[in-house]
């Protein structure tokens, strides 16, 4: 390790330590978003399209959960997965799996709440036409998901941005173990406190670049949607 390499050199030379941290971070956050989407998109669609007692409360709670503090999610997942916890037998605390679960829980409400709003707005717009064209329930759902696809992808990207940037949940359930559960954010926290500023800065630059790329993608998706679909 070149202890005195500058941040830029680390990034430029694709320092292996830095690369492995970046790859793990992307893998964990990407997996978390996939899991969160599998649960969050159907949940959002169901709340948007059905009427049941307590629905308003469910929407308020879901919206509130969008602002869940990552450390609290980390703590809850820690208690769940710790050896004496209900899921302790899984033995996955301090592994990337635990980090994926924690981030998925963090991101799921964001995806569900935004998807609920998107799908419901579109449904309000389409419902009369669905009735007039005698469209069946499954086809209605398929149509709404398809026609809202650009907004929904933007929602997933927002979830990814949130997961990639959080530190509180992964540090608690991952333990920040070098070469195993160390992500960009936890490494930055640690290296900064240790005084290894070049690595922290290098990771910070990569993280910012990723956030910029994700937002550019979201913007591009939105523009494409507007161009293709109005």
């Amino acid at each position, binding site marked *: 390790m070149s202890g005195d390499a500058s941040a830029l050199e680390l990034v430029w030379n694709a320092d292996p330590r830095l690369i492995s941290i970046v790859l793990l971070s992307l893998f964990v956050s990407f997996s978390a978003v996939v899991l969160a989407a599998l649960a969050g998109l159907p949940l959002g669609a169901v709340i948007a399209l059905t009427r049941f007692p307590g629905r308003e409360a469910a929407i308020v709670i879901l919206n509130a959960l969008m602002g869940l503090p990552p450390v609290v999610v980390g703590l809850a997942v820690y208690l769940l997965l710790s050896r004496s916890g209900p899921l302790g037998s899984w033995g996955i605390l301090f592994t990337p799996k635990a980090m994926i679960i924690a981030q998925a829980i963090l991101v799921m409400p964001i995806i569900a709440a935004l998807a609920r709003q998107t799908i419901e707005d*579109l449904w309000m*717009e*389409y419902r*009369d*036409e669905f*009735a*007039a*064209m*005698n*469209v069946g329930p499954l*086809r209605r759902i398929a*149509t709404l998901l398809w*026609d809202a696809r650009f907004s929904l992808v933007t929602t997933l990207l927002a979830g990814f941005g949130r997961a990639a940037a959080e530190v509180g949940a992964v540090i608690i359930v991952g333990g920040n173990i070098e070469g195993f559960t160390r992500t960009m954010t936890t490494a930055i926290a640690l290296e900064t406190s240790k005084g290894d500023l070049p690595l922290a800065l290098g990771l910070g630059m990569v993280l910012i670049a990723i956030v910029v790329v994700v937002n550019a993608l979201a913007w591009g998706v939105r523009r494409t*949607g507007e*161009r*293709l*679909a*109005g």
Partner: protein
Amino acid sequence: MTMRAPDSELPIVLDAVRYGVGRLTILDGISLSFNPGAPTVLIGPNGSGKTTLLRVAMGLLAPNSGRVTWGGRAQISPERRAIVFQRPAMLRRTVEANIEYALSSAGIARSEWRARTDELLKLVGLTGFGGRPARRLSGGEQQRLALARALARDPQVLFLDEPTASLDPAATKAIEDVIQAVAGRGIKVVLSTHDFGEARRLAGEIVLLHRGRVIECTPAVEFFTEPKTNEARQFVAGELLL
């Protein structure tokens, strides 16, 4: 190919139909029938119940009391009825995809889509617009696309809710031309308007609505030359406001 029910949607008969929301009565004992022939125009001031009546006749709203029959049968699925709402929603797709959606909803085989889409676009004067996003069309073009989508169902009866409200004279003319072409093909048109000129130009028969009741139901010629009721005279004179 889908099997089409041979049964006719016509005549549509409303018998003592009452429709209300909460304590508000919107349609107050309406008895009417829509028969094959020239267009029926529902005319009446804003809030008189035109939109609600069209939705009931389309089968989208169930009356609180009284009954509606289509070709002698009570509730049947609206296979060969179509409606264009006053502010039709455009699917977030291209013009062509909007029509194809209607064709597939009506159960028309995919192999026929191309030819039917071209024919419908031509009928409503949107040839060459197929690839455009529907929501980017002007108001008049959207209204014509909505007409094409409704016609994709190959309806026997077509309900139109104020199809030219908020359009300029040229766009209005374009829509009215399509309506006349449609009526000429033997499709029963029932449309609402609060525009007299339009009623005169299109109507074979006039139904005057006022506060949820049918005030007059007469052939158009008679309605304009010798209105039977006081309200009709007032309405023709532009004095019936509420």
